[in-house]
């Protein structure tokens, strides 16, 4: 007579198989979600007017801050007024149906109800001013906006579990227009923290350092409120 536990295991084969497959499936799914799929949770809301950043910032190379003028002097980057749109579109492409919509708003003296795409939770304090003045390219956090017809953001529940913070921490200089490193990053604490750890402010500019310290905005209250 044999007392090996294998017969018992065998009789549980189906159950064990289901359990193993389920566990493995969960893990594999989790990793696929992170590693293989490009944008796990893309948030790209419909805008009242199909505005294309690709045409404006990409093809016609209009600088970001031409429209988002507040970015360099206030916490919020700001959405341009209809006035700003009409400044060009009085002359440019006036016959396009989309521009007609803009001029409709202009004539009715109504603001365009743009939908905010890049949003942060209530407990986060972020100021554009400091980051723009330190010479950090918009694409560092916002991704290659100049290639997007429709703005999308990879968002994830901020309190949810995350296996890896895939931040590279490379700041893009304003000169380089390479594809941003944050293509697959989520706007989570790790993203901010990694960059803050690896950079120091020298003469008002963000400079990469190897040995980050407590004094460079690693204090929780730098970003929390």
């Amino acid at each position: 007579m044999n007392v090996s536990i294998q017969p018992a295991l065998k009789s549980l084969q189906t159950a064990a198989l289901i359990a193993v497959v389920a566990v493995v499936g969960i893990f594999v799914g989790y990793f696929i979600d992170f590693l293989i799929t490009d944008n796990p949770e893309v948030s790209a809301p419909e805008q009242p007017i199909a505005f294309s950043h690709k045409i404006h910032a990409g093809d016609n190379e209009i600088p970001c801050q031409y429209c988002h003028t507040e970015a360099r002097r206030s916490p919020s980057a700001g959405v341009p007024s209809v006035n700003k749109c009409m400044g060009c579109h009085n002359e440019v492409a006036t016959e396009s149906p989309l521009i007609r919509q803009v001029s409709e708003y202009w004539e009715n003296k109504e603001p365009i109800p743009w939908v905010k795409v890049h949003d942060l939770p209530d407990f986060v304090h972020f100021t554009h001013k400091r980051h723009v003045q330190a010479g950090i390219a918009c694409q560092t956090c916002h991704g290659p906006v100049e290639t997007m017809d429709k703005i999308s953001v990879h968002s994830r529940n901020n309190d949810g579990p995350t296996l890896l913070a895939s931040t590279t921490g490379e700041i893009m200089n304003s000169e380089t227009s390479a594809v941003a490193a944050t293509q697959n990053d989520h706007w989570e604490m790790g993203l901010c923290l990694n960059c803050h750890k690896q950079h120091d402010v020298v003469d008002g500019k963000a400079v990469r350092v190897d040995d980050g310290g407590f004094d460079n905005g690693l204090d929780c209250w730098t970003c929390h409120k």
Partner: protein
Amino acid sequence: MHGEPNQLKYTDIHNDVVRSIVETGPNYYIALVTAFALTLICFFFPWFYQLYYGIGAAGMNHPSVWGTYLASFIFWIGLSHSGTLLSCVLHITNSSWRKAMYRSAEAMTLFSLVVAAIMVMVHVGRPWFIHWAAPYPNQMEMWPNFRSPLLFDVMAITTYLTGSTIFIYMGSIPDFAAVRDRTRGWRNTMYSLMSLGWRGTDTEWHRLHWAYTFLAVLIIPLAVSVHSIVSWDFAMSIVPALHQTIFAPYFVVGAIYSGTAGIVTVMFVLRKFMDFGQYITELHFDNLGKLLLVLSLLWTYINVVEVFTGFYSGASGETEALNYRLFGFYAPLYWEMITFCAIAPLLCAFKSFRTSFVPMLVLSIAINIGMYTERFLIVATSLSRQYLPDAWGLYVPSAVEISILLGTFALFTTLFLLFVKVFPSVSMYEVKETMESPKKSPPAASEGSPA
């Protein structure tokens, strides 16, 4: 004496224990369903309501931010103490009377700990983030604060839960093997897995003995540290009447005390409803009674010391806290505690009291009521009277809290009822050990060694 163990045969034990597992009467199902229903109604539904509404469902308020949830937590941790701890001490000191009762005592430890861990979840404001108190790498690069007494608790309770689980499981492997051969169907599968293919060879016994002894040696200091650490949750604060050096021994003694009383209760129930009268005898109640007496005297001593040092220090905060505890709003509870935990156990001085079952049951329940009161008073009286008189307050538990408190007992009972049908609730092999080993049967007994 009631039921001479020496007259029993190995097979009798075997049959009795297997019967306790396999044969299930309707009473058991009624008890299980009742306990489970009570768990749902009294524990989980109020808890879900509290999760939805916030901790405000409980009666806590501004100065008294801790309440019965924490008192229950300490109570259940305390109750967990004597099981494994007592079992380890008695194992190391080779006390044979331990053997009939230690399995259920250890189960008590395990389930009390489980309930205590759940009480932590009930206690905190945002239990959905409780995992932040565990050290694991995360994208926030945030780790728990290892300087916090509460984190000592997390580590200690995790260790204790792991240790107790392993300890009870290890001691049960030979019994699982013994039950395995007598069962069929899904039970056989389960016991085959749980017994891990135990055969009872001399090598296996030898290894089990050593591993078990090492575990016992490791768990004794662990158990002492666990309740010391629970006491430090309080003693590390600077709240008057909590910031005391004596708190660690006080809590440890209190824990063993209430745990021993808990064992008496469980023993009584097992004896009554599982027909283990032959194994759980007056001897056990006698010994547990002696232990209760000693512990009650120790506990009383520490209480006297606490009151005396507080009184003698003359510090205004201490005096005020002491006065409030002895004569304030909660004073009736204090004197109830003294009656139940310091005076009533003196009855254990009489052997006739110790060896009668029902009075011991009543006493054990009274002691645990008293010990719960002690934990409640530690939380309630100290927090409602702190340094600044303007921030004094009063704390009265709400209906949700009382319901959850009752529900924890139902939860514990449910778990225990499930346990008795899965684990052999009396350790077969150790009871067999206490009996005289079979002698050579007369016909076969011709020569001891071959020629």
